[in-house]
């Protein structure tokens, strides 16, 4: 009867929790989390450093940061993955190349591509946060005897980070989802595992649904955590954060 409408697909969800499929999925999840976490930390650091450099009046620093941002954000991530996997190791010094090969060159090429690409995008978010702070805050810091770097570290960046939580959340979710592209260079992350199950069982709907749901749960969890962070570090009295501001 269903065959008449071309619906001959037979669901078999059990493929997901028989081994080795479950192990593949769990290992994929673990790789995705590691890849995302390491890349995120590096991306945030790059974003803070280059985002801050984009706002200083010292021209060479500004120029270097601008080149970084424009160069890395304007080339597709997929191209960067191929570049860091197929291209870059060839020009690395031999010892570095050997280190990469021994420690999983696919994974570390993925980290390099994702962190540098998303670092350039986060730099813009952080720049906008710093530029939203009145210039007089910098002057207040400088006039008290703090150096420019100390003023950035103690005042401008901590305030900017509080202002940019919503766009930074967005960017963090993109980073997590973009780790799926690393399967193209052979990183056995979550999407890779789903495709592998599909290849072995021909159960594409089940395998990809599982991957989709896991991504969904991960992203919702990150959103919730970032929301908590936003509330915890909200500057008292300055901005009402959706906690029933008076109308």
């Amino acid at each position, binding site marked *: 009867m269903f065959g008449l409408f071309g619906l001959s697909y037979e669901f078999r969800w059990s493929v997901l929790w028989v081994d080795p499929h479950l192990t593949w999925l769990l290992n994929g999840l673990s790789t995705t989390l590691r890849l995302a976490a390491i890349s995120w930390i590096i991306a945030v650091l790059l974003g803070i450093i280059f985002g801050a450099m984009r706002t200083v009046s010292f021209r060479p620093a500004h120029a270097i940061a601008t080149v970084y941002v424009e160069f890395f954000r304007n080339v597709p991530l997929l191209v960067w993955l191929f570049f860091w996997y197929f291209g870059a190791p060839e020009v690395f010094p031999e010892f570095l190349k050997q280190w990469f090969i021994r420690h999983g060159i696919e994974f570390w090429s993925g980290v390099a591509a994702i962190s540098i690409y998303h670092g350039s995008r986060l730099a813009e978010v952080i720049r906008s946060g710093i530029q939203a702070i009145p210039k*007089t805050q910098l002057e207040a810091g400088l*006039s*008290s005897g703090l150096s420019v770097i100390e003023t950035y570290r*103690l005042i401008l960046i901590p305030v900017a980070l509080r202002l940019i939580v919503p766009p930074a959340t967005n960017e963090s979710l993109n980073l997590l989802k973009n780790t799926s592209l690393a399967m193209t260079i052979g990183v056995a992350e979550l999407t890779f595992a789903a495709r592998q199950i599909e290849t072995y069982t021909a159960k594409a709907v089940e395998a990809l649904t599982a991957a989709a749901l896991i991504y969904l749960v991960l992203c919702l969890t990150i959103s919730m955590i970032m929301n908590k962070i936003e509330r915890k*570090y909200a500057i008292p009295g300055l901005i009402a954060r959706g906690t029933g501001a008076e109308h």
Partner: protein
Amino acid sequence: MIEFRGVNKWFGSLHVLKDINLAIKQREVVVVCGPSGSGKSTLIRCINRLERIQNGEIIVDGISLSGKKTDITKLRAEVGMVFQQFNLYPHKTALENIILAPIWVRKQSRAKALKIGKDLMAKVGIPDKLDSYPAQLSGGQQQRVAIARALAMQPKIMLFDEPTSALDPEMINEVLDVMTNLAREGMTMIVITHEMGFAHRVSTRIIFMDEGQILEDESPELFFTQPKNERTRFFLSKILTH
């Protein structure tokens, strides 16, 4: 303490300071007034090099600001500054605002900085607001915290850039009172203000600026009774009528 020698400054083609010569001694309280755009704010912002000059020389506490080897952050630590818009750090409590520079610049211990900070909060009359964040304080309270923050560095000179201009009228006096006490204690102060009552009572000298020049530099008595310059008389007639 502070000396301007033939100082000129331009913003692009705008000549904002024209051949300024000025010497301010220790313990002097100098009020600077003049219409907006007259260069008075630029004048005091040059003293801690928030603005750079194009020619001439400024000497603060015996050190030339334009010297190649001048350590500007060290000099800024000796010059406190209070701004029109308070400029407290919004993510830090009043007390944290005060102890930041003493800990980072003066390398004070946290305990010592906290003690000095609490004493200063008492001195400016708000000992109960230590843990309030700037946005939870009134304008007058914020400005008093800003003064305490500057004083925590034990500066040799205090600069005030229109400290009461952003305040509601009923809060102006609480800030002026703190400044008056400071002057009585012998602090060297340069104050941009249009509070002529304060200028009359507290200052040792009043400078009137217009179009980048110092037109009048007098004791308060002479400034109010016998201003030399036509422009000064016109300005006084405008601001003293109400």
